[in-house]
C-alpha cells in the first residue's frame, strides 16, 4: 500500500504509571519513548509521541495511524482507534514471536494473564481483583519498607539463603510483616527472596487458574526484577521466553502492530 511516505505506525500505551510510545516502521524496526504519565494523560502522551518522532527523525505527518491503549486510552484524543491493553499485549508478544501463547503482565496497578493464538488474537484473560495485592504497587511498598530501590529487589534476591515465609499479599499489611521480620533479625536478602517467591506464587496461581501454556513471556515494569522471574520460573516449572525488548514496551508495540494491521 502506498500512503505517500506515511511509513510509521504509532502505538501509545497510557498506563497508570508510565506512558509508552512505539513507532513502528514499515520494515518492522521500531523506536520508542517512555516517561511517567503524571496527571495529564493527553498532554504526556503527546510529549512522549514527540520524543519518539525525534528519535526516528520523523514528523507527525509521517504517521499513518495511531492506536491508543492502557488505562488512559480514553483521554488520547490523537488516537485513531483505542483497544484494551489485553489485546495489545497479545499482539506485541505475537510480534516478538508467533510461538508465544501466554503473556503474564504485571503493571503498576493490576496484573493480568493473557492467552493468545498464532495470529496474535487475545483468546482469554484473567485479571487480579479489586485490591493491589499482586501488582507492582505491592513490590514498591516492599522496596520502600526496606529502604531500597526497586532494582535491589532483583539483585539481592539471589543472595537469600533461606527465603522468609511471607504471608501477607496485602499492600497495607506487608509493611508490618516485613518490620517484624527485620526485628526478628532476618536478613534483607532472605526477606526480599521471600517476597519474590510469595509474589510469584500469587501470580503463578492466577496463570494456573487461566491454564498454563508453554511459550510464556513476562511483561510490565516488574519483569525487570530477575529475582521474581527466577521465582516464577521455579513455581510454574516452565521457562519464560526472553522478550528481547524492554518489557514495559510490549503493550505499546502491540498497539503499533494493530495500527499497521488496520492500515492494510
Amino acid at each position, binding site marked *: 500500500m502506498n500512503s505517500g511516505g506515511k511509513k510509521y505506525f504509532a502505538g501509545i500505551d497510557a498506563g497508570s504509571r508510565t506512558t509508552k510510545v512505539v513507532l513502528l516502521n514499515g520494515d518492522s524496526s521500531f523506536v520508542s519513548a517512555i516517561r511517567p504519565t503524571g496527571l495529564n494523560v493527553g498532554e504526556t502522551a503527546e510529549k512522549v509521541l514527540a520524543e519518539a518522532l525525534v528519535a526516528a527523525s520523523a514528523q507527525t505527518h509521517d504517521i499513518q495511524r495511531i492506536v491508543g491503549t492502557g*488505562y488512559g486510552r480514553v483521554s488520547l484524543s490523537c488516537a485513531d482507534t483505542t*483497544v484494551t491493553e489485553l*489485546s495489545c499485549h497479545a499482539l506485541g508478544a505475537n510480534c516478538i514471536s508467533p510461538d508465544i501463547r501466554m503473556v503474564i503482565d504485571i503493571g503498576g496497578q*493490576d496484573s493480568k494473564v493473557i492467552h493468545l493464538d498464532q495470529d496474535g488474537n487475545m483468546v482469554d*484473560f484473567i*485479571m487480579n481483583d*479489586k485490591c493491589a495485592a499482586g501488582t507492582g504497587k505491592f513490590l514498591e511498598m516492599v522496596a520502600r519498607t526496606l529502604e531500597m530501590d526497586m532494582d535491589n529487589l532483583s539483585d539481592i534476591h539471589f543472595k537469600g539463603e533461606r527465603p522468609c515465609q511471607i504471608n501477607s499479599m496485602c499492600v497495607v499489611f506487608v509493611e508490618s510483616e516485613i518490620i517484624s521480620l527485620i526485628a526478628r533479625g532476618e536478613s534483607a536478602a532472605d526477606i526480599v527472596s521471600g517476597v519474590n517467591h510469595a509474589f510469584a506464587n500469587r501470580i503463578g496461581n492466577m496463570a494456573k487458574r487461566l491454564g498454563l501454556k508453554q511459550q510464556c513471556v513476562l511483561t510490565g515494569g516488574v519483569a525487570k526484577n530477575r529475582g521474581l522471574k527466577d521465582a516464577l520460573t521455579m513455581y510454574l516449572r516452565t521457562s519464560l521466553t526472553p522478550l528481547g525488548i524492554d518489557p514495559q514496551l510490549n503493550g505499546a508495540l502491540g498497539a503499533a502492530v494493530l495500527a499497521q494491521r488496520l492500515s492494510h
Partner: protein
Amino acid sequence: MVLAVTETIQDVHNDFALSLEMAKEGGQKVVGCLCSYSPTELILAAGAIPVGLCGSTQEPITKAEEILSPDQCPKVKATYGRAVAGTCPIFPLADCVIAETTCDGRKKMYELLEREVPMSIMDLPQKPETPAALNHWIEEVRQTKSFLEQQLGVTITDDDLRSAIVMGNKRRKLITDLYYCRIHNPGPINGLEFINTMSKLQYYTDFDQHIATLEKFYSELQQLIEEKHYAHSADQPRILWTGLGNSLGCSKVLELVEECGGVVVCQEGCGGLTRSEDQIVLGENEDPIVAIAKRYLRVTCACMTPNSQRFDDLERLCREFKIDGVIDLAWQFCQPFEIESYRVKELVKDKLGLPFLHVVTDYSQSDTEQLRIRVEGFMERIATRKKYADRRL
C-alpha cells in the same frame, strides 16, 4: 407505556411505599421476602401482599457496617442496612418477614434482623435431592404457614393455597413469556431497560392489576417485534448473565456491558428466567403445601449442593438464546457463587467453547474503570471469535 424506566431505584421505592401505605390503610397486610426460596404462595393465600426486601443499593451499607464487619457481601450488608438505616420507606411497612438459611452471611445476619421485625426463618436443606430433604422442607413450609396465620390473624385453607398456586403460576408464566421475547434477534429491548422494568414490576399491591401490567408489557414487546422496532442490532454480542448483579440499583457491570456494545439477552438465576419458568405442579389430591414445597426446593442457588440443575439450565439457555458470551458475577465475599464459578467456567469455556468472564465486585462505583477493561477485553474477545466463525462459513 410500561417501557423505559428512567426512575432510580429510590424513586421506585418511594412510589411503591405510597401505594403500599394506602393498601395498608385499607386493611391489607404486608409480608417481606428476602430471597427466591420464600414461598410467596403462602402470602397470597393469606390475602397479604408479598414484598421483596433484598438490599440492592450501596447507600444503607455504611449504616450496616456499624454492626456487621465490612467483610460481608454487599447483599447481606445492604439488606440489613435497609432495616436499620431508617432510609428505606418500604421496610417499616412489612408486618413480618419470611427468610431462609441459605448462605452463612444471610443466616447469621437474620439473627440480628429478627430484632427489627417478626421473622420466620425457614431451615433450608442444602442437599435438596436427598429424600429426607423434601420431608424436612415440607415441615418448614407448614410452620411458616402457621407463622403467617398467627402474625396476620388469618386462617389459610387448602382452597386458599390452591388458588394462590394458580395465581403464582399465572404470574410466573407471564414473566417467562416476557423473558422469551428476547430470544428474537434483533430484539425489542436492551438488557438494562428490561431489567429495570422487571425490577420495577416486581412490586405490586393489587395482584390483578399486576397481571394486567405484565400483560401490557408483553404486548408492547410483541408489538415492537411485529413492527420491527428494534432496540439493538442483530450483530451485537448476545450475552447471557448468570450469578448476581442483575437488578435495578446494582447493575453497574451490566450497564458497562451494554455501553461497550454487548446486549444482555438472557439472565439465569435470581432476577432471571430460571426463577420463573419452574412452575408449581399440583397433582390430583396432592396436599398443596407439598406441591409448593417441592417447587421452592428446586430453586438453583449456589448455596445448594451439588446444584447440578443450574448447569443444565445454563447449557440449554446458551443454545436457545444463541449466546456469544457468558458473564458470571459474584459479589465480593460471596463464597457460594465465587466457588461455583469454577464449574460455570468449565461448562461455558471448556464444554461450550464460549467466551467467559467472571467478575467480582461490590455495589460501590470505585472500580468502574478497572471493570471497563475487563468488559472491553471480553467484547474484543467475542468480536475475534465471531470474525473467525464468519470466515469459516
